[in-house]
């Protein structure tokens, strides 16, 4: 991992090579469901970054929706320790 920052050895001022950039970008591409299918095509860095941002935003939205729903559910099933114990044991299975 420390080999990535071999700043002193490189003649150019930039501390990261193009290969490393493409490596990282392809690693990111692999994580994104939209682009996973097109793994063998060359996807531009800009597109990968764009899709990453979109994906993170959509994940945020999903979490928002889920927490909204959870808050409503919790408000209705409040203060019932027996139920909580059951649910907790269910969660562990």
């Amino acid at each position: 991992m420390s080999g990535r920052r071999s700043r002193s050895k490189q003649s150019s001022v930039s501390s990261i090579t193009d290969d490393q950039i493409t490596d990282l970008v392809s690693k990111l591409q692999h994580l994104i469901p939209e682009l996973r299918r097109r793994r063998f095509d060359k996807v531009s860095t800009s597109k990968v970054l764009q899709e990453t941002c979109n994906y993170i935003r959509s994940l945020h939205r999903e979490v928002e929706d889920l927490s909204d729903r959870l808050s409503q559910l919790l408000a209705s099933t409040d203060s019932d320790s027996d139920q909580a114990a059951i649910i907790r044991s269910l969660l562990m299975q």
Partner: protein
Amino acid sequence: MASFTPNLEPAPDTSLQFKPKKPRITLQTPSSCPSNQRTQRIKRWRTQRDQHIYSSKLFQALRRSRRTSASREVHETADRVLAGLARGTTRWSRAILTARKVTKHKKAKLPTNNRLRKPDIYRERRKTPAVERKLKVLGRLVPGCRKLSFSNLIEETSDYIAALEMQVRAMTAITEFLCGGTGGGPQPPADRLPSNVNS
């Protein structure tokens, strides 16, 4: 070799006992040699065990707090538990935790990696302005990563995305349980969220 295997089988009850005694175990995968550190990180948020641990912690936190009627509270609790699971190893998790300790309006300033900062003129030679713009947007989306170098940012993003996916899976599971499993919660598409890793 493995003390546990992440798979479809139900996690044993001992996972509950693990938590108070050895919370460190949550981050360790079966492989323990340092050369597999990278693999460990890749599989970090994808095991069933991690998800179970997160679900139970989140559920307990939600039940403990009396103010869970607001969706924002639930969201923040979920983020906080998620960041807590990371044990301070990533920037975004530290940013989430410190942002909560301070007030909501002021985010704690994290030290940037100054020796990796390149002057602008050299940066433009490598990446186009469009890419630069998108990198900035990405840095704003991931908490605490506004001024990171390219490689750090990508690392943080990968970890953050994996953690978010797990968060979605776990919260969906909790929602379904609270609904009584009648299909009230949204079903994440199976091909979108890889939830199992067979080591």
